């Protein structure tokens, strides 16, 4: 971390695009509110990805631009379209699906991620209160947890840290972090840099990360 101005990385849309590329074809995926919601717009129908929404949908295809039906929304309250072969269920069945390990991947927003994979994403201490929604269940239950977020706060503080000082969502749950600067895997031995965003250097990622980042492997530039 330095005291200089943080570099400008990817837009929210490009973070979402890169996150979409992280999904396996044919997988079942839950998207958190905010940036992750954009991911649905970046998958191809041929990928056969089924998006699950906590409020009880398996198989929506993204945010709808057409008429609003109050009974057809995702967990962010946005109107959605359905794919052929979608299904509806109640919240108990939805979280049996989530908590029971039937979701291949979840992409959530983050406030902080620690070197052992702890996630903080629901409570900003300075604001208090917080809203938790399905985040804790998803963090515990999804087979693979991808965090899509800005690499640093608006104040230039790293969000990728040795230990979270924000209240946790869950311990040891994060597998991959996708930011405007980099793709970083959370491994047994801490953060492992996999990719850097175009225009961002390995040194800048290290500078703006609040914990050691292993760069020993092949670090490549993100393909977008």
């Amino acid at each position, binding site marked *: 971390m330095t005291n200089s101005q943080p570099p400008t990385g990817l837009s929210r849309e490009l973070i979402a695009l890169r996150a979409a590329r992280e999904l396996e074809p044919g997988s079942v995926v839950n998207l958190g*509110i*905010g940036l992750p919601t954009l991911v649905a717009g970046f998958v191809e129908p041929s990928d056969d990805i089924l998006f699950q*929404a*906590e*409020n*009880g*949908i398996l198989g929506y295809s993204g945010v709808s631009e057409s008429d*609003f*039906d*109050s*009974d*057809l*929304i995702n*967990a*962010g*309250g*946005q109107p959605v379209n359905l794919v052929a072969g979608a299904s*509806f*269920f*109640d*919240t*108990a069945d*939805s*979280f049996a699906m*989530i*908590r029971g390990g039937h979701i291949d991947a979840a992409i959530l927003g983050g406030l902080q991620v620690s070197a052992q994979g702890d996630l903080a994403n629901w*409570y900003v201490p300075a*604001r*208090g*209160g*917080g*809203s*938790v*929604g*399905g*985040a*804790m*269940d998803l963090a*515990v*239950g999804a087979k693979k947890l991808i965090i899509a977020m800005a690499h640093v706060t608006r104040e230039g503080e790293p969000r990728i840290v040795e230990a979270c000082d924000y*209240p*946790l*969502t*869950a*311990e040891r749950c994060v597998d991959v972090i996708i930011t405007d600067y980099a793709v970083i895997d959370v491994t047994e031995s801490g953060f492992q840099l996999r990719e850097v965003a175009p225009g961002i250097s390995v040194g800048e990622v290290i500078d703006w990360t609040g914990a050691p980042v292993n760069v020993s492997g092949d670090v490549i530039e993100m393909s977008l």
Partner: protein
Amino acid sequence: MLAEVFQTPDTAVADIANGATILVGGFVSAGTPSNLIRALCRTGQTELTAVANNIGLGDLLDELCEERQLAKVIATFAIRASGTRQSRFESQYRAGEVELELVPQGTLIERLRAGGAGLGGVLTKTGLGTMMAEGKETLEIDGEHWLLERPLRGDVALIKAWRADHHGNLQYRLAGLNFNPVMATAADLVIAEVEEIVEPGAIAPEQVGTPAVYVDRLVQCDPIPVRWEG
């Protein structure tokens, strides 16, 4: 056994008592019993505890804060991520005028299910190692740790379905199910707002989302559209 049909939402909720715990179905705009919520506001009853997925995010539950009818809210979404707009609930919460118990969504629905299904609690990994575990028991079972969460019930449940028959069977449409079917099992008095009431048999037995046994009162209303303001 037949559900009782009320002509107005106001008569359906008229005997809800001060201090009651009220389960409120719906998920933002989907399956939300907005007519019943507004009628509850008009009762003027106070010291209420509301159990709902969300408050102050485009829903009408926030209107209960107008006249300070809520003593406590148990919810998963209650505070907006951005501080630029505060709901009435958030303002009162920050002023210490109303209590908030924030619960993970999967834990909230499972606590309600336990309350309705005669189960003694919920054993979940959700919340372990977080603020949600503070003051709660953790059980070790076969070497794994689980958080013990308590069953949750209401005195009254206000729910919303698409259609009902006169027995009280409810049919939901699209993602209108969400919290409604489980909340219908977990309250002493269940009041359902529906768009249409039909004869028994008009809802196919496979399409009943909430069986008649759970529903005490029905009221037919045009839905009030609401929308997320996250």
